[in-house]
């Protein structure tokens, strides 16, 4: 039967409905600020929105979007190759390229389309891709479409990457290496200095997804490559406007002039409508703001450290280092669902992550921190976890 393969998911949905939990369908009924909303009828602190710099509710970005809608209308009603390329799109491409100190940029309608499109197009049949095993679904989707030979290396393991580059022999010089800056589920930062050194030794090209690290890392917020001092080794940087920039859309920037030819070979760019003018305008304003307000990044990391240390001191199983993404590792699905529901009832909205969205077989409660969170809000989040721990719902790390 056509629908048989969906039965396990239908059963899972029925289980959630029976337990009156809606982790994947929780509706935000009202947004009160960048960090507060009404979810499932309750006022909550938003701690799972990837709104790292708190710009989704910035009045300047909202005003820019309003003005653009007034001037350009609500949508482009077409693709960039047809009628959807407005002066605003080209301006954003120039500005995102300049932000990275590069000459070439493509703006996509979503971050997923940017990453998937580049991964699907750069390498093709006869080429080889080496990708981190914990890559985002957009990368897996893209490389699958590429027709290239796909080889995974162990997550953030330079030795394994080097071994696999060595095994490629002469083909290593043309290989496409794919990694991410901050990994979205656990918040860990890729060992980019080591990866760049391997690329320098064996050759190849490096595509880096800075979706969760743009705005959060680097002296000017360019991301993990800037923080690691290896930007010159990155051939293609992809990212999103839907996290630190608070809107929606994606981009690819590169020093390679060939990006202009590649642009016209990317299905995810050609065959979809371009971003609406209001989205482009708010993104441009947000990009300007993060260039002028580095204190937002400082505040983000103060909050990230506060939450990380707070959860760690509770004895919870968090990652090895602080990050804007703080994931609490859980034991099983049932317990994770119960805790997610209890946190919501305590006024804290986080992300429930279960396989295959999580790496390996992890069950996670994923928190994302914002520069807009107050210290009191971070403490409230920690207190909500402490309440769960005290009831015995949360697993305590053996290291504590």
């Amino acid at each position, binding site marked *: 039967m056509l629908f048989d393969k969906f039965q396990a998911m239908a059963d899972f949905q029925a289980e959630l409905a029976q337990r009156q939990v809606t982790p994947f369908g929780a509706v935000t009924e009202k947004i009160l600020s960048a960090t507060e909303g009404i979810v499932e009828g309750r006022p909550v602190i938003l701690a799972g929105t990837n709104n790292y710099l708190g710009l989704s509710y910035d009045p300047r970005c909202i005003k820019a979007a309003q003005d653009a809608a007034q001037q350009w209308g609500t949508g482009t009603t077409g693709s960039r190759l047809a009628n959807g390329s407005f002066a605003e799109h080209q301006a954003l491409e120039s500005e995102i390229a300049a932000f990275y100190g590069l000459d070439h940029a493509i703006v996509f309608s979503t971050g997923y389309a940017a990453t998937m499109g580049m991964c699907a197009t750069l390498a093709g049949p006869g080429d080889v891709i080496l990708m981190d095993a914990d890559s985002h679904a957009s990368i897996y989707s893209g490389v699958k479409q590429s027709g290239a*030979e796909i080889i995974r290396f162990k997550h953030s393991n330079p030795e394994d990457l080097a071994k696999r580059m060595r095994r490629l022999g002469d083909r290593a010089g043309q290989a496409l290496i794919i990694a991410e800056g901050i990994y979205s589920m656990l918040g860990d930062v890729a060992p980019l200095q080591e990866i760049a050194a391997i690329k320098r030794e064996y050759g190849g090209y490096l595509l880096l997804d800075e979706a969760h690290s743009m705005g959060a890392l680097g002296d000017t917020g360019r991301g993990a490559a800037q923080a690691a001092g290896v930007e010159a080794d990155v051939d293609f940087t992809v990212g999103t406007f839907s996290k630190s920039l608070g809107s929606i859309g994606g981009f690819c920037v590169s020093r390679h002039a060939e990006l202009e030819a590649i642009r016209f070979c990317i299905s995810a760019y050609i065959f979809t409508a371009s971003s609406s003018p209001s989205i482009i305008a708010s993104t441009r304003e947000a990009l300007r703001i993060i260039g002028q307000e580095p204190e937002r990044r400082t505040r983000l990391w103060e909050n990230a450290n506060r939450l990380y240390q707070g959860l760690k001191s509770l004895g919870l199983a968090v990652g090895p280092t602080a990050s804007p993404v703080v994931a609490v590792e859980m034991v099983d699905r049932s317990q994770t669902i119960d805790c997610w529901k209890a946190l919501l009832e305590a006024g804290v909205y986080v992300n429930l992550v279960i396989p295959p969205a999580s790496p390996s077989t992890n069950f996670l409660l994923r928190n994302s921190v914002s520069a807009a969170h107050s210290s009191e809000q971070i403490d409230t989040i920690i207190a909500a976890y402490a309440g769960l721990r005290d009831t015995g719902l949360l697993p305590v790390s053996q290291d504590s």
Partner: protein
Amino acid sequence: MTDYQEYLDFLCSALESQNKKNIPLNENTALVADIGLSSLEVMEYIEKIEDHFDISIPLNILPDVNTIGELAHKVKELNL
């Protein structure tokens, strides 16, 4: 050059530690349907094979592999 049987022998021996049901392993044994390997266990098994033969097994070939024998043929091709 290693022949098919030698690949098969190694692939069977490398699987023993993951053969929790203790079923007889031969070229017709299915990795998932018979042994019940999870996707993570399949990747651990693949890694053992890669390191033994010093090769990388592309993800692309895995959808065509169900049995130990099918995998042995693929590994033999990759190691030529």
